[in-house]
């Protein structure tokens, strides 16, 4: 199966910090791929490189098997890749419809649109309402600034926008990080609905229960590279955490204990 989105040997340095140190990445058609890793493991950097938000210093990205190079986020969006960036998803003082269509506004038909460049606000509102409804995001009004929404609703707007425009891949960087239990559940439901449409989803998350609940496969990122690619059913949460922290390593599909104490502390039982 050709991966939808693939990367080999990605390197990204910020001055002395190496955020990505030869990272590989594979996203298969129709799957929810969780990307997990400690703080600073390079998850966000990986996502930013894959979606054109930053340029890698080295490495190769393939979309449907073809080598691509995204000059900027707009370029990736044109290729059908939509991203919900961590903490940088919506413009706070704009309303929901403005946010849904930011950078892709619809103008009025005829001279009003082509000469006067008038926006078709009615149509953008109506379409936004449909997209919000499709993901079952309940809102009282679409004409209020998103800063007046709850954290979950705001994230819902960002997710709905990504889903509405994506034709290829949806990427979400820690979409539940700032949310409560109920709101996180709503975002996970949205991710399921996206997968049910056949779109592959990349989900960056810290939250192991969420990851195990929703992911088809898990990409473990550590010190700027992928250290494991696993199925949730094959390992326990404690083992995955141990892999994430480096206490456990994978080699030829087998786990190797590198730090007995840490593994014991993590509650992993292995011989």
């Amino acid at each position: 199966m050709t991966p939808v989105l693939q990367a080999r040997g990605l390197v990204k340095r910020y001055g002395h910090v190496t955020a990505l140190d030869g990272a590989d990445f594979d996203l298969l058609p129709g799957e929810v791929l969780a990307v997990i890793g400690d703080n600073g493991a390079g998850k966000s950097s990986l996502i930013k490189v894959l979606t054109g938000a930053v340029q890698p210093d080295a490495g190769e990205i393939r979309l449907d098997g073809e080598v691509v190079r995204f000059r900027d986020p707009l370029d990736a969006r044109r290729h059908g890749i939509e991203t919900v960036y961590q903490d940088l998803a919506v413009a706070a003082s704009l309303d929901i419809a403005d946010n849904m269509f930011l950078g892709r506004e619809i103008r009025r038909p005829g001279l009003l649109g082509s000469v006067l460049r008038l926006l078709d606000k009615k149509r953008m509102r109506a379409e936004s309402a449909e997209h919000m409804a499709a993901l079952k995001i309940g809102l009282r009004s679409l004409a209020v600034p998103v800063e007046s929404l709850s954290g979950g609703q705001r994230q819902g707007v960002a997710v709905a926008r990504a889903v509405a425009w994506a034709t290829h891949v949806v990427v979400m960087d820690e979409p539940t990080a700032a949310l409560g239990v109920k709101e996180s559940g709503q975002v996970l439901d949205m991710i399921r609905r996206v997968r049910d449409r056949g779109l592959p989803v990349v989900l960056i998350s810290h939250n192991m229960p969420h990851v195990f609940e929703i992911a088809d496969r898990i990409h473990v990122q550590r010190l700027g590279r992928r250290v494991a690619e696993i199925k949730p059913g094959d390992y326990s949460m404690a083992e995955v955490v141990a892999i994430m922290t480096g206490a456990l390593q994978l080699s030829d599909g087998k786990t190797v204990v590198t730090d007995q104490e840490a593994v014991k502390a993590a509650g992993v039982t292995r011989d």
Partner: protein
Amino acid sequence: MTATTTTQTPLANEPSPARRLLLTPTAGPLAALVLACVFFSFSTDQFLSGGNFSLIIQQVMVVGTLAIGQTLIILTAGIDLSNGAVMAFGGIVMAKLAVDSGLPPLLAITAGLAVCAGFGLINGLLVTRISLPPFIVTLGMLNVVFALTHIYSQDQTVTGLPAPLTFLGQTFSIGDTAVTYGSVLMIGLFLFFAYLLSQTAWGRHVYALGNSPEVARLTGIRTARLTVGVYTLAGLVYGMAALLLVSRTGVGDPQAGQTDNLDSITAVVLGGTSLFGGRGLVIGSLIGALIVGVFRNGLQLMGVPSIYQTLITGILVILAVTVDQLSRRRTR
């Protein structure tokens, strides 16, 4: 996006336009302006007349127009300290080219507009290319342009301007009220920029940029180009303010506009636009300029010494930024 569905989902609970205005940060300033007008109407007989209103508008015309450019820049979370100086230089260029160099007046005006837009462009490039804070860039530019004005004019006031340069100072009558063409130009500019900011994609992008440049960039907005465009357009508006200034005073004056940078910021702030960027309406800045104008005019008619006008303006500014700060804290 799947644009095939044309069925309009009924949107319950959409606020009406009037209610939406109430929700904007411009509602407070508008109420303040109305209250001030009511107060002065009862306090002095001369206040409530077409002629007096026409006078107030003439008095705020130059600062009001500067405030349009200032609003654009403040909406991007920038600030422009150089606009009064740029305007003064633009005015001198127009006057000297038309009088001393004998250029056709319209060409002299065009050159003045272009020079002002050029300074805006330089400001914009310094802010984006070298990532300098707008405060510092425009502070530097203020001094550069101020010096250029005095060097170029040799500190001489330019008199004897040809008709096209003073046309905007002419009046026409609405009923028995004389209105200057310049007032009409200023109001027209406000309406034009209100439309640009609220009805076009460009306007939405300016707000998004002011909210967060990184969010705007990640949504695919070309933020550097947008910023340079905003500063350049603001410069062009300062050029129009220069023409208004020259028309109103009838001379090219190198000393003009020295406090207008701060006065334009005052108008923007009083109009409810946030100095943190991304929030506010350009019409608010007209209201802000009118608040200052109405207080000045009303207090003068009441015979209050002018220093109290300054005192009240200062208190209003502090009040306005306090409201902004508190409302931001509430929505965070």
